[in-house]
């Protein structure tokens, strides 16, 4: 058994995860599941589905830790991208689209208002994005949280691709300044 540490630096974490340490994987989960859960919930919008995706994301982290390259960025950035990609894939999957259609029908009938969607605006990264100006917010919403390419966004919003590109970059700089403490 390893000595139970209360804090690991990133190099130790990655090294011990590659040695298949359950102890350290548990530590990783305890420290990062909340942050990843938040971004997943931002994207998929449903609590129960977000829990499923979170489990799937940690399985990927566990099984793909050997492909993590520390020279390219932080471990958290790598995990965050896994979480974002898994969430967008889930939202785009056929079963999710079907269930969303059903739910929207139900909500129309009972007029309960899409409360779960507004609620996920108020947590995590998405809450910060929603503090930006509308023209920037829309672009980050579509590209980051919904995963559309700039080409797709250009067509959806009928804005020239060059404008989408410039405006999105300005939006990201503003986002950077918002999250920089």
């Amino acid at each position, binding site marked *: 058994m390893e000595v139970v540490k209360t804090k690991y630096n990133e190099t130790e974490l990655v090294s011990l995860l590659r040695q298949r340490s*359950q102890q350290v994987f548990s530590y990783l989960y305890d420290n990062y599941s909340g942050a990843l859960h938040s971004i997943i919930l931002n994207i998929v919008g449903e609590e129960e589905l977000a829990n499923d995706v*979170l489990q799937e994301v940690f*399985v990927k982290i*566990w099984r793909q830790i050997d492909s993590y390259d520390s020279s390219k960025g932080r471990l*958290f*950035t790598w995990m965050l991208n896994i979480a974002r990609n898994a969430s967008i894939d889930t939202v785009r999957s056929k079963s999710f689209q079907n269930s969303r259609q059903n739910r929207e029908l139900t909500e129309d009938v009972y007029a309960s208002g899409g409360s779960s969607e507004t609620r996920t605006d108020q947590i995590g990264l998405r*809450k910060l994005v929603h503090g930006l100006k509308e023209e920037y917010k829309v672009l980050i919403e579509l590209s980051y949280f919904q995963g559309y390419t700039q080409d797709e966004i250009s067509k959806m919003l009928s804005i020239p691709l060059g404008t989408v590109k410039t405006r999105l970059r*300005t939006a*990201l700089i503003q986002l950077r300044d918002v999250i920089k*403490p």
Partner: protein
Amino acid sequence: MDIRAYIESGVIESWVLGMASAEEAAELERLRVLHPEINQAIDAFEASLERTALAGATQPPVYVKQELFTQLAGEFKQEEARTRVVTMPAGRFAKYIAAAAIILLVISASMNLYFYNRFQSANTAYQALLVEKTSLIATNHDIQVKALDMYQSMQMMSDPSVAKIPMVTVRANENNLATVFWDTRTKDVYLMPNKMPPAPGDKQYQLWAIVDGKPVDAGMMDACTGLCKMKNIPRASAFAITLEKRGGSATPTMDQMYVMGKVG
């Protein structure tokens, strides 16, 4: 190239958030090697993104972690898996084993108690037997000594050169009797108290030899078995016994004479 403008272009944030195109990513990875400022900017944005995400964390329900670890149970390092196996088997079978172990323990403990008590009583009996055996040996020894004394006494009594002098009572209404055996060769004197009243605690019987009409001390009679060996008396005409104070007297107390017998 204007590095400052590049850093402020938003391409770094786009890349970190996974939204950069392949060409943008390739350019950034090439530039970060050449320009440490770009590297620093990437790292700074990653750090603040992580801080922000951790600050905005929402806790998933506990069952998610349980399901995750159940799903990956076979993929953890072996020695940790082994410690898990040790804690796992708390099923019915283990409960039966535990119950059986407790029952056996109770049976074993009560048998220990039973056999300990048996051992204690056997040990006590053994000690008693040891004491009895020791005393039997002592008694047996005493008896052997007495038997040997009696044998020697009989040998002497049947010896023709040993004179037998019976001493009869001299007191009215008493039937006292004692016998002196006198070895005519060695002149040793032996006394057998055939029938004498027991002497009081502070008194003792004393044997006298009558030599030329005068009494000569021939020794004190002890509680001897069989024959008591007395003093050597070269010649005497008679023997008598008086009751004297313990340790004997120089001259006999005549009114305390019990028995007397003449030689020849």
